[in-house]
């Protein structure tokens, strides 16, 4: 019976407490405040000593890596541009060189052609002179032959007609006639 009453009063007290706001039950405030302060101090120590420096370092590391990568990419881009410029320059140089070689070769060939032409010209001139000389000789030979034939013919004609004439006279007469 006694225990029942005690139980009952306890139950009644609980009901009483439940009716109000447990938040305003000031008997528990000390307990809550004590554990809250312990909790906050623990969280603060863990965060400020371990977690926050670590996360900060990771974030800084990542930002640094990204910045480095961007810088490296920029550098590579620069290098590529330089390489392109160098390539273009080499190409232009090669073109100029090729043009120079072409011009040089052309000039050389022209020189050779000129020399060969000159040489051929002189040879041709020599041949022409030779030929002309030969022709003149032949012509002179022919005139002489014609004169001889004319003299022989004249002598033969005179002989045939029964005349005699000194050979020298006949020769001079024919020569005179031929000249005249």
């Amino acid at each position, binding site marked *: 019976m006694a225990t029942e*009453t005690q139980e*009952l*009063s*306890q*139950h*009644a007290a609980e*009901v009483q*407490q*439940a009716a*109000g*706001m*447990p*938040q*305003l*039950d000031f*008997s*528990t*405030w*000390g*307990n*809550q*405040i*004590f*554990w*809250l*302060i*312990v*909790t*906050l101090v*623990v*969280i*603060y120590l*863990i*965060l*400020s000593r*371990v*977690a*926050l420096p*670590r*996360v*900060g*370092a*990771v*974030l800084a*590391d*990542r930002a640094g*890596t990204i910045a480095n990568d961007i810088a490296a990419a920029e550098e590579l881009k620069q290098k590529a541009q330089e390489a392109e410029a160098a390539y273009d320059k080499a190409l232009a140089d090669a073109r100029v060189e090729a043009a120079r070689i072409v011009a040089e070769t052309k000039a050389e060939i022209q020189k050779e052609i000129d020399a060969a032409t000159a040489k051929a010209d002189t040879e041709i001139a020599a041949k022409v002179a030779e030929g002309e000389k030969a022709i003149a000789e032949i012509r002179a030979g022919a005139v002489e032959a014609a004169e001889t034939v004319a003299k022989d013919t004249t002598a033969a004609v005179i002989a045939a007609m029964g005349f005699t004439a000194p050979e020298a006279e006949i020769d001079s007469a024919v020569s005179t006639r031929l000249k005249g």
Partner: protein
Amino acid sequence: MATEAHGADAAHEGSGLVFHPMDQFIVKPLFGGTDVHWYTITNVTLWMAIAVLAIVALMVLGTSGRNRVPSRVQSIAEMAYGFVYKMIEDVTGKDAIRFFPYVFTLFMFVVFSNTLGLIPMSFTTTSHFAVTIVLALAVFLTVTVLGFALNGAKFLGLFWVTSAPLAIRPLLAVIELISYFVRPVSHSIRLAGNMMAGHAVMKVFAGFAAIAAVSPLSVIAIVGMYGLEFLVAFIQAYVFTILTCVYLKDALHPSH
């Protein structure tokens, strides 16, 4: 007489529709007994310890990889870090970064207590004024002491609105002074009130679930409330933290 009362109570409970929406907030010793001394290990102790463990799991174990490409947990920890860091930088200023661990501690404690309180049968430590008043008073005292330590008497310029006409400045000073001292009250009651009200409403809906006719409606309402409370848990942590930043700004830059 007492037996009768007991009997009546039991009969009432037997009817199935009993609301004890505030019972979830009762502070109870964990290991028997009824007395709650300041050192007693209670459900408050348990849920605060769980909050500490959750914070350690997220911020210490989650970031133990120190990965340059973060794992899922690490990216949540980094998001929380960046969120509070940016808030202090934007609201209070770059020179307030030295209070980052302090503000981050408050944010993590409030956000974890709020969300852990949403686990069924759990205990919401931030629904108690004892807890939120200590948090708010800590901010209030920090701001006041810091304000005078950094600015000296110039800190009183906070209450003397030089941009207003001279005639109404004394009146404004009284209003500013009152609003300054009301800060810890509103700061703490906003958080505890939000937490308490949401949990109590859910408990009331849960009580209705005992009546078969309305139980589907009650369950749907609980689901809706739960989603809303999840949002409120984050929003109230955000509000508490951003107000802390705003108050800290007054301590660092008291001029309006």
